């Protein structure tokens, strides 16, 4: 599971290494560390943004160990939808029940439409839209694309996926 986490360290040397060690001890994988030495919180601590991958059951233990080391955990964000792709749609997108089109993806539970830009040149003209799909994994993303293809094909809408 991919996690983003905001933590705060006391402003003495060696604290960052101290904070990162439990992640690898628990079998996690650090994806990025944003350490802003020159920014301080009102209480004089140093904010750090972490992105890491760790098993769900390891997460609680990680938070415990960070607390033991005097690291404040101020936010934990679970980024469930890891994979994204953009597709274009061309056709009568709005008048063929856009809500239902989006719902065909959102109702899967493993994928969502996370962004949509629509261009409507005229009432009787075809609209164009860019749609970003996100899913929990590569296979799920593929399946979401298949579902969207089937849904829009029935509505006479052209879909342009990426290569």
């Amino acid at each position, binding site marked *: 599971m991919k996690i983003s986490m905001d933590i705060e360290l006391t402003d003495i040397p060696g604290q960052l290494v101290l904070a990162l060690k439990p992640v690898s001890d628990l079998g996690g994988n650090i994806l990025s560390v944003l350490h802003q030495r020159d920014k301080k919180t009102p209480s004089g601590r140093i904010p750090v943004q972490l992105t890491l991958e760790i098993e769900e059951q390891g997460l609680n233990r990680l938070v415990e160990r960070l607390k033991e080391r005097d690291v404040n955990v101020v936010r934990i964000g679970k980024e469930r939808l890891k994979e994204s792709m953009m597709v274009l749609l061309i056709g009568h997108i709005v008048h063929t029940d856009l809500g239902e089109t989006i719902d065909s993806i959102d109702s899967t539970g493993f994928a969502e439409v996370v962004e949509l830009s629509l*261009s409507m040149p005229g009432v009787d003209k075809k609209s164009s839209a*860019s749609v970003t799909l996100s899913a929990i994994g590569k296979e799920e993303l593929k399946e979401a694309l298949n579902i969207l293809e089937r849904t829009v094909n029935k509505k006479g809408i052209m879909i342009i996926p*990426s*290569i």
Partner: protein
Amino acid sequence: METKLPKLVRISIVGLGNVGSGVAEVIRRKQEEITRKYGIDLKIVGVADLPGAVVDENGLSEDAIRKFKSGETAEDMTTLDMIKDVEHEIVVETTPTNVENGEPGLTHILTALESDRHVVTSNKGPLALQYVKLMDLAASRGKELKFEASVGGAMPIISLVKDNLAGNGIISIKGILNGTCNYILTRMREEKLPYEHVLKEAQERGIAETDPSNDVAGRDTAVKLVILANSIFDRHVSYGDVEVAGITEITSEALKLADDAGYVIKLIGEVDGGGSGECLKVAPRLVPKDDPLNVGGTLNVATIKTDLAGDITVIGKGAGPIEAASAVLSDIIGIYR
């Protein structure tokens, strides 16, 4: 001192349209160089077009070909009689593509192989419809049937895969195989103009035909994919097996939305080795701007995915008489190497 005489290679050209005339021109232009480099002496002993054929066993001059083409001189015999009866080694078949029944090219090629002549062609129809039959006939006669010019014009794909990438497993090929569609999509994006407008412009510039449907509906790309599927992937497919969508529905708004997100839209043909998840389709696709498949204008491009060499991308001119003649000439020389 003994000088080795160059090997005489007599050629007939069937179909004196752009490509056929281009072949006659490049042979004339390159004759001495080819003799010097490859030790073969190319001689055009016959040319044929709709009325029939003119022949000269001593070689037809530029003037003789021009006069026949313009109707000033009459034919000596029928095209099929020339293929069968005039002594020569190679028939260059450059009549227009017909994907309904492959004719007249199909009969020309069959007759040439049955008469024990090598065939070099730019004609997609017979290959797309009767690939296995034609290749079996060529093999049983011990003759070559080569067709580099039929896919991607001057851009080498077939010989690149068969010769230079020998030993590699070819996983897939995808690319832009139609210069007209590429021109239209490139201009629509650059000038933010609607499809109909750019199509008209392409027709005025001679880039799109008066009836552009073969190109813009994706059919030309589909036929080329069939040739690649059969010749490179041994897939035994024909035109009807291809999933085809064209570019006529693409809006300039869609191109703008793609552009904003870092993509261009291209008409992409894609073929793989079949089996699970097999692919044989032509469709507009989003291509990241920094992908090698993002080439503009009338250019063609193909990315060949291989198991050893990784991805290889070739870019070249897909159309034009001299460009197509370049591929025909390479095939001719390839027979004697």
